[in-house]
């Protein structure tokens, strides 16, 4: 059952990430708060795939693979997980002071080929690829994908432990702390691919609340040679950031490219 579920998640992940920027649907997690004080703070989170930000209107985001990292680097828990028609929800109890990372990261391979004139589709990992995909498959097409979707939340003073990159896929390395963002101020970030600077990657930032305005308000910036970029937040609110890149570093030789995506939600406070 577990592997079936994982595979279903991967299927959705890859279907979306491989479809690329042409797909209008956006994946997101929306925390109830990212800057918290007090003795016993909790956050609750909505997770969905939709056109408009941040509205539940299409499908819920599957939570398989959801990982909470506590401020001390240990694994935390996402409590009260539920998936409904349009959204998934879960809670995180911020029992430690400092910054938490909540992430959905996955990587996998998608293949299609012809068997007796019929199109076959397959999704899995590098390990299962050799076993499950016929070596002599006709018209074989293989793509690899890595996705990361995340946000940060801080109880009390912001800390840096969870900001260290994992070194896998496309990731953000914040220079400005992601829970210290204010309208009118410039925030600096670095984009990394497998832990190394990702130059010349387009990063798109869109403020939430799309439904109640005409202008999408999209900001696009390209990372420089060091993978660095800056965003000046025009107004307070929740922002959605996404970036995608492709390279030839595949784990199976049959794949001709790997696509990697990074998506995050940031809260920008009023001055």
């Amino acid at each position, binding site marked *: 059952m577990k592997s079936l579920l994982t595979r279903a998640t991967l299927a959705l992940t890859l279907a979306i990430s491989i479809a690329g920027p042409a797909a209008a649907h956006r994946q997101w997690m929306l925390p109830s708060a990212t*800057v*918290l*004080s*007090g*003795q*016993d*703070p909790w956050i609750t989170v909505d997770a969905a795939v939709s056109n408009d930000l941040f509205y539940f209107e299409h499908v819920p985001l599957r939570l398989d693979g959801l990982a909470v990292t506590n401020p001390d680097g240990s694994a935390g828990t996402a409590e009260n997980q539920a998936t409904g028609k349009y959204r998934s929800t879960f809670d995180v109890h911020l029992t430690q002071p400092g910054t938490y990372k909540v992430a959905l990261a996955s990587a996998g391979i998608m293949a299609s080929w012809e068997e007796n004139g019929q199109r076959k589709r397959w999704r899995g990992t590098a390990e299962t690829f050799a076993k499950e995909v016929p070596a002599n498959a006709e018209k074989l097409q293989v793509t690899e994908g890595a996705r990361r979707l995340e946000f940060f939340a*801080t109880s*009390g*003073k*912001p800390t840096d432990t969870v900001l260290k990159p994992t070194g896998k896929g496309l990731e953000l390395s914040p220079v400005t702390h992601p829970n*210290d963002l*204010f309208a009118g101020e410039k925030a600096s970030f670095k984009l990394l691919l497998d832990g190394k600077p990702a130059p010349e990657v387009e990063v798109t930032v869109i403020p939430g609340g799309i439904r109640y305005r005409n202008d999408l308000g999209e900001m696009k910036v390209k990372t420089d040679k060091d993978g660095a970029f800056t965003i000046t937040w025009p107004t307070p609110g929740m922002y959605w950031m996404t970036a995608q890149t492709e390279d030839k570093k595949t784990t199976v030789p049959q794949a001709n490219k790997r696509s990697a995506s990074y998506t995050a939600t940031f809260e920008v*406070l*009023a*001055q």
Partner: protein
Amino acid sequence: MRTLLSLSMTGLAVTPALAGELAVTVEIPKLEVAEYHRPYVAAWIETPDQQFVANLTVRYDVKMRDNEGTKWLKDMRQWWRRSGRDLTMPVDGVSAPTLPVGENRLSWDGAKAPLNGLKPGSYALVVEAAREVGGRELIRVPFDWNGKPVKAEAKGETELGRIAVEVKG
């Protein structure tokens, strides 16, 4: 954050204390609203380039069970960013109950903390108020701290009324 901290340290370096007194008036306006809660109010001193120097007072619901009143301290956003998130409340001599409607006169002795280490120079008094189911307002009143008498004031528009600083030589 580290920069802020070290700057605040230098602001409070050991220097001959100036005699005198800092008197601050914080007016909490009377608001005709269905559900009124006294605002959370923080008052602190910063440099003209908005670096935090020292807290004067932080007014919040100190009496709630299990220190639950601290949940809304972050709503004083600038204070939270500049100082609050580095503290564990309550803080002696800083934490205090909320202020009632009207003019509240508060004063600090120049010979005692936190003013005894304040170097002569230009500063600003910053007062930030955040009210449950209400709004938020922040007022800055520049003043000089050099042993000479000073009177300065500003007026809030929504959550704060008259904010006055008086340095008594």
